[in-house]
């Protein structure tokens, strides 16, 4: 059954059919939340709350766009909102506190043109890049999550964030450069 047909039936009272919508999108939705929130343990709770928000909002769906586009806008908004509320609970991430040797190794790694897959997945490197990502502004962090971690296209991200493709390109360009600054210069720049 197509999404729109399902949504019509759910709105008319067949609420159990919402389980089909959850099954259809839960992995992608959870993946975005898990990546954006820095792989914290409460991501599953956040994902549950996001689906409840979607359920509550269904009567507002006007059938003018794809359901998935409309749904992802809620996912992104709720993820950013919940993440902001929880920020005070997250341990501050600070590249400046990393050991000099670690920072030096990271910069050598970033400058190298022949890193192996094993090196890319190295726990310490992953941790430092994730720490730097957490320092970005929310819209920058979201576009990089969607583009570089979740592998969505510019066009898909533009639809999900209700922005133009040109804006998405600019955000990605600036986000990557800001991330590089944080990683190489400790995040003390603007």
């Amino acid at each position, binding site marked *: 059954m197509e999404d729109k047909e399902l949504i019509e039936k759910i709105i008319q009272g067949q609420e159990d059919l919402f*389980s089909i919508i*959850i099954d259809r999108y839960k992995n992608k939705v959870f993946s975005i939340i898990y990546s954006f929130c820095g*792989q914290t343990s409460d991501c599953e709770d956040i994902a549950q709350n996001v689906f409840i928000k979607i359920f509550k909002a269904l009567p507002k769906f006007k059938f003018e766009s794809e359901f998935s586009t409309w749904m992802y806008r809620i996912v992104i*908004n709720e993820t950013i909102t919940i993440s902001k509320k929880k920020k005070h609970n997250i341990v501050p991430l600070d590249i400046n506190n990393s050991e000099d040797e670690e920072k030096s190794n990271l910069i050598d790694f970033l400058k190298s043109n022949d890193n192996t897959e094993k090196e890319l997945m190295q726990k310490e490197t992953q941790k430092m890049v994730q720490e730097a*990502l957490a320092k970005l502004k929310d819209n920058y962090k979201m576009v990089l999550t969607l583009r570089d971690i979740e592998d969505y296209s*510019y066009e898909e991200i533009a639809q999900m964030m209700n922005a133009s493709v040109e804006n998405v390109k600019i955000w*990605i360009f600036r986000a990557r450069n800001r*991330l590089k600054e944080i990683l190489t210069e400790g995040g003390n720049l603007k």
Partner: protein
Amino acid sequence: MNCNKAQELISQYIDNKLSAQSVSELQKHFEECSKCKQDYIMLKNIKAVLSKTPKKELSSDFTASVMNKIKNENVKKDDNVVMFGSFFNSFKKKMVMAAGFLFIVASSTFFFMHGPTINQQNGDSYASSGMEYYFGYNSYYDSDMDDDDYEEYISMFC
């Protein structure tokens, strides 16, 4: 190609979004400019690390848990949900904005009527006061938000 142009294109080059001609010009620039080439390598590596971010599987009872919450908590549909990028679209939000705008206009009128007295006491010029005096520096004037950032910020909601 100069360095500014090259820097603008590197991000799209990493995403394989450039035309063949732009790729050729950029690669030629890399041969002449080690700084831009180094930036390209670093950005490419950062993207590669991000693409290897660990994933996690959802628990098998996720769907049942959500459906139970919906049933047990008697969740009502049509809650106030704010859509990303459409904050200003709903009628209620427009009413709140209108009220806010009226408040700002009223506050500004009050301030500009009484402002000179305050400024004379402080020895400041009239031009340097205004809204900033009452509200502090708003986000547009914050030192960490330039014009481009402000345009982006606004474009998130419009």
